[in-house]
């Protein structure tokens, strides 16, 4: 069982308190009706599946109950960084 650093609790907490929430930084379109079917399909279903660092959503469901984002290496299962919802992926150009 891994430990995950919750950016809200500011603590390393056991994995069993968390739930996984899929790829991060996919915002729901402000006006879905303006998207054509292909664009909507991309929003709904198309996800990266990288070998290596992956930005993804987690929720400290049995802790502070907040969703947050994390960069996790899919090869080593290591969390490189976790950060609050709404913040840019660390290291990304603003």
């Amino acid at each position, binding site marked *: 069982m891994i430990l995950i650093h919750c950016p809200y609790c500011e603590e390393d907490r056991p994995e*069993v*308190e968390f739930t996984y929430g899929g790829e991060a930084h996919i915002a729901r379109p402000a006006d879905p009706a303006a998207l054509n079917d292909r664009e909507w399909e991309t929003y709904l279903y198309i996800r990266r599946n990288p070998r290596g660092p992956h930005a993804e959503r987690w929720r400290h469901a049995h802790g502070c*109950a907040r969703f947050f984002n994390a960069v996790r290496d899919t090869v080593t299962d290591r969390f490189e960084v976790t950060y609050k919802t709404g913040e840019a992926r660390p290291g990304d150009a603003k």
Partner: protein
Amino acid sequence: MLEIAPLAVAGIDLTLGTTPVSGTVYGHSVTLSPAAPMVRWSLRAKDAGVLSAAIGRALPDAIGTHHDGIARLGPDEWYALLPEGSTLPVVAGQPLSQVEVTARAVGLTLTGPGAAAALGRGCPLDLARLTPGRATRTVFETVEIQIWALAPETFHVEVWRSFAPWLWHALAEAIV
């Protein structure tokens, strides 16, 4: 043939204990008892000041701590655990949420040198570091609980009503 009992039978007769169970866990003495009836509120606000003003009480600052019967569980979430008969003023139209959940949960108390060991059988937190004044939501195996560290070797455990019989017996099982 190995007979598998139907799932419906499992746990059928588990009932919440009503009298304390004392003994030792891994050689350390501990007492498990039902906590006194309490009043419970879930309190939510983005701005702690608005909430504090509305209820006329101070709120703990740090997530994972409690003070004067109120714990901060998350950035916008507090939980009040007050003596039976306590009231909170309820306001309307403000950017906050007050929901009374007195009947939603029951409280259990673990006291004694073995209290942390008893909880640590199913809770993955390092309870030695959950010092008095700390309070957090977490799990005991598959059941969500809150642990409030009230004093050295004394923990209050909040658990939703329907999970309480299982939790009581899961804790009591190891007390010999």
